[in-house]
């Protein structure tokens, strides 16, 4: 192994949200002199502000640190960020592939959470060296012994190897750095072999074009290298290579073992697929880095313009937005109720929320979002298999042989006193128990198989409620299974609203129908006439409710000085109705389209 490689360490930090990942990262940067304490706050924030003005957000995807270890040698450490949510499991696995080791950060006051375990297993499967770090040990409620017990029982690691640390108080930072140097193996690779580099993250920069964050396994890449993206065969000339120090800094070259970024005047971020392999077009490698798969949406929902937003506005905004989000897919669809819009595919619910919020906030788009749904598969009597991304497209019952729905395996970690409540909740969600084990004296890990549709809406919230916020949850999609499913239609004044149709388990149809009709009654404002709401399966009405017509307005005087005020009031009223969608003569608010999410 070359001297250069011996002095490189590539690692991630695995942690649950709020367990202190960014504080620890800040401390590592500070300790190694990548940032001064003062500069840390001010300059980094300054950069972010400038970036914000340009309308882009940059996070630190891969920071390069220089550390002079106790052995007297100087090491180059690459800290690679991992997204912190279940929706981004694949992205996490790609980030971990770029590393040889990981810090497993556990909050001494909270203990291990489900997500941490899921990521831990991923890391272990990739043969990463894991260094447990118990964080926040300075807090009075820290229970280090309990965490050590969990580390031994759940993770099967030696608890005595765990480093006691506190990012906030600056405890154990040097120990962490020493462990990185001494325990995590240096990268292997040969800079004389053909280029082989993994893309683990990307973003769109208005000046550089699409930027890829890469880990070089073999070979070398520099300005001018003609690269080929192996999944698509597309080729580009590299315009810049560099690393985050933590500022984006150009370098001469990135060689085997290195982590950094490359830019190649790539206009479409979709050309830079996370998990894809970059090679030298003139001297390509035989084999890509294993594990690539294109981003696959798990959840679909309709996005429709409302208020003063037109379909063209929405389409333009989506085009601009997706420059920076390769995981979002969408296609134009027409809804009789909502008009022209798109059916968009998301990695998960969080991803959907992010997209929706950013479209509204950054692109001033007014949206009606329909209730999200999973992808169903229908086997017709003729034996055809159809993929159903929109419940209203479910074929006529007579043509269906069977309907399949996706299942997940859920891992839930909860204090043992809430096991009963969790079991009850999961049972309501059609869950099948698969595992039950104590991970320490007071904490239980439950495994369930649950139809994905059941956890789409409010499962996480409910889980938090029944366990007073103590449980954590993670999932993995495990495949399709047949379900006894029916399509439920919602009728407004006798007319079915396609955008409100959804698919539900037959046994739950009555309860869900009743509940959704009641919820809709609450959210549909009184109108100038009576509004009738009905839930139907096929031609059978199973629940109905009515919204009585509006009684009267505030009937105020209106003389010379009242006119302008009156106008403002009307304007306000109009604003209030902006997120409404006209269906026939009835105006339906956004909430009506999401009533299914609130079903008890």
């Amino acid at each position, binding site marked *: 192994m070359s001297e250069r490689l011996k002095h490189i360490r590539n690692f991630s930090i695995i942690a649950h949200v709020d367990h202190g990942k960014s504080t620890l990262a800040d401390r590592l940067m500070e300790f190694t002199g990548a940032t001064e304490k003062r500069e840390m706050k001010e300059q980094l924030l300054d950069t972010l502000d400038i970036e914000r003005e340009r309308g882009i957000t940059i996070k630190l995807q891969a920071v390069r640190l220089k550390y002079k270890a106790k052995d007297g040698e100087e090491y180059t450490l690459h800290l690679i960020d991992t997204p912190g949510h279940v929706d981004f499991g694949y992205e996490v696995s790609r980030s971990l592939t770029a590393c040889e080791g990981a810090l497993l950060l556990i909050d001494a006051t909270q203990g291990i959470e489900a997500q941490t375990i899921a990521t831990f297993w991923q890391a272990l499967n990739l043969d990463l060296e894991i260094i447990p770090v118990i964080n926040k040990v300075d807090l009075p409620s820290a229970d280090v012994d309990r965490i050590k017990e969990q580390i031994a029982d759940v993770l099967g690691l030696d608890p005595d190897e765990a480093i006691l640390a506190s990012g906030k108080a600056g405890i154990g930072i040097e120990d962490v750095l020493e462990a990185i140097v001494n325990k995590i193996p240096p990268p292997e690779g040969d800079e004389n072999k053909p280029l082989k580099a993994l893309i683990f993250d990307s973003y769109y920069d208005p000046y550089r074009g699409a930027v890829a964050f890469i880990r070089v396994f073999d070979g070398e890449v520099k300005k001018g290298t003609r690269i080929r993206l192996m999944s698509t065969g597309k080729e580009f000339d590299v315009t810049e290579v560099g690393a985050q120090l933590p500022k984006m800094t150009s370098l001469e070259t990135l060689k085997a073992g290195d982590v950094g970024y490359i830019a190649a005047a790539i206009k479409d971020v979709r050309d830079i697929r996370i998990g894809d392999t970059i090679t030298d077009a003139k001297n390509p490698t035989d084999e890509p880095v294993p594990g690539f798969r294109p981003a696959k949406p798990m959840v679909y929902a309709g996005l429709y313009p409302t208020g003063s937003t037109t379909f063209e506005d929405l389409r333009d905004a989506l085009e601009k937005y997706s420059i920076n989000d390769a995981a979002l897919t969408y296609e134009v669809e027409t809804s009789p109720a909502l008009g022209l819009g798109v059916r968009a595919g998301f990695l998960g619910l969080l991803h959907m929320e992010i997209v929706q919020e950013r479209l509204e906030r950054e692109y001033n788009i007014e949206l009606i979002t329909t209730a999200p749904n999973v992808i169903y598969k229908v086997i017709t009597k003729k034996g055809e298999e159809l993929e159903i991304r929109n419940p209203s497209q479910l074929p006529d019952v007579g043509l269906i042989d069977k309907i399949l729905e996706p299942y997940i395996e859920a891992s839930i970690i909860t204090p043992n006193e809430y096991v009963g409540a969790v079991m009850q909740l999961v049972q309501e969600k059609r869950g099948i128990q698969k595992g039950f084990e104590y991970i320490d004296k007071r904490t239980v890990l439950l495994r369930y198989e649950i139809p994905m549709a059941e956890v789409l809406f409010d499962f996480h919230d409910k889980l938090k409620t029944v366990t007073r916020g103590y449980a954590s949850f993670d999932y993995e999609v495990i495949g399709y299974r047949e379900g006894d499913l029916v399509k439920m239609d919602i009728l407004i004044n006798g007319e079915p609203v396609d955008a409100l149709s959804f698919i539900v388990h037959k046994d739950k149809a009555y309860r869900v129908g009743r509940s959704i009709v009641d919820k809709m009654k609450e959210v549909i404002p009184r*109108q*100038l*006439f009576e509004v009738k709401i009905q839930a139907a399966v096929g031609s059978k009405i199973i629940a109905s409710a009515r919204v009585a017509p*509006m*009684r*009267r*307005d*505030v*009937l*105020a*005087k*209106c*003389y*010379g*000085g009242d*006119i*302008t005020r*009156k*106008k403002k*009031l*009307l304007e306000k*009223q*109009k604003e209030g*109705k902006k997120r409404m969608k006209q269906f026939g*003569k009835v105006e339906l608010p956004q909430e009506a389209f999401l009533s299914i999410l609130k079903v008890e």
Partner: protein
Amino acid sequence: MVKGIYIHIPFCNIKCPYCDFVSFINEDEQLYERYVNTILKELSFYQNENFNIRTIYFGGGTPSVLKPELIGKIISYIRNQFDTIKNPEITMEINPKTYKENDFYKVANYGVNRISIGSQSFLRKNLQSLGRDHQPIDVLKTVEYALKSGINNISLDMIYGISGQTLDDLQKDLEIYTSLPIKHISAYMLTAYEDTPLGKMVEKQEYQMPDEDITTLMFEKISDYFESKGFFRYELSNWAKLGFESRHNLLYWEDKQFLGVGLSAWSYIGNKRFGNVKNINEYLKRVENDKKPVEYSEILDEREKKREKIFLGLRLSKGIDIRDFNSVDIFEELSEQKLGVIDNNRFKLTSRGLMVINEVARKLIQELNL
């Protein structure tokens, strides 16, 4: 062409808790005189506008805190300086207990020919609940003085939807109002405006507004009763014997131009709506320094004018001319829903339609893309 002038007198003897007009308690005669002189000066700023004055209106506040001579001074200034028709309608709002018989002779002499009395109700408990300082008898006396002085175009204000008011209470008021020798009634549903003491009391639940069921019934009952006694509704809150509609107030609803002077007064001249400052010292200082006291103004484009036409025109019993708009569909839809009728190219709200006038206006504006 400016057809009417409104003069705002922002002084009162007491401040009623529900009132949202700009006024304050002040009994300083010197300030009154200074204020009137300022009004005259403000009027002089508009000499170059095109006037054909048909109505003059003294509103407040309480215009009748001013001595009749000061009212007279303003009227004669207007008549001398602006083109005024021979018999303009000159209205003065009068609070019970302020003007005595002699004062009426005086203002009648200066040209006041219509008075509007802040009577509100003839039931003591209502007057108390509204924080009024007069008694029912004071209203009767005021009507009597006006008639004696030769002013027979009399309007009375009525407020309903008062805390604790029953339908029987309302019936009593309706009977008294319609039995009096008056020509006009303005009946307002009590509104708890945000920035008024009443609004704050309602917010703190110290004042219980009657529920929607009862006020809805009251709204219907009032119109039925007034119409049966020969008072015809010509606007959402206004009823008159034939030919005694308030010509001045009709300017507001019929999209006509008017000049408003005095503290917080609003004008509509050319295609511009503008409003004066609300601070008395600022008002006096600005005018005395030869500056217009305008603090808010808005140019109306065609679209805005059409919007105003809708929400102002809907208030009137004669409704709006549907030929002013590019589609009749929405008018037909609203007629089918019994919220209005189309009659001779005009769309008029029914009683049910009037009750939801804001929602109908919003709907029209939305459907007509205005």
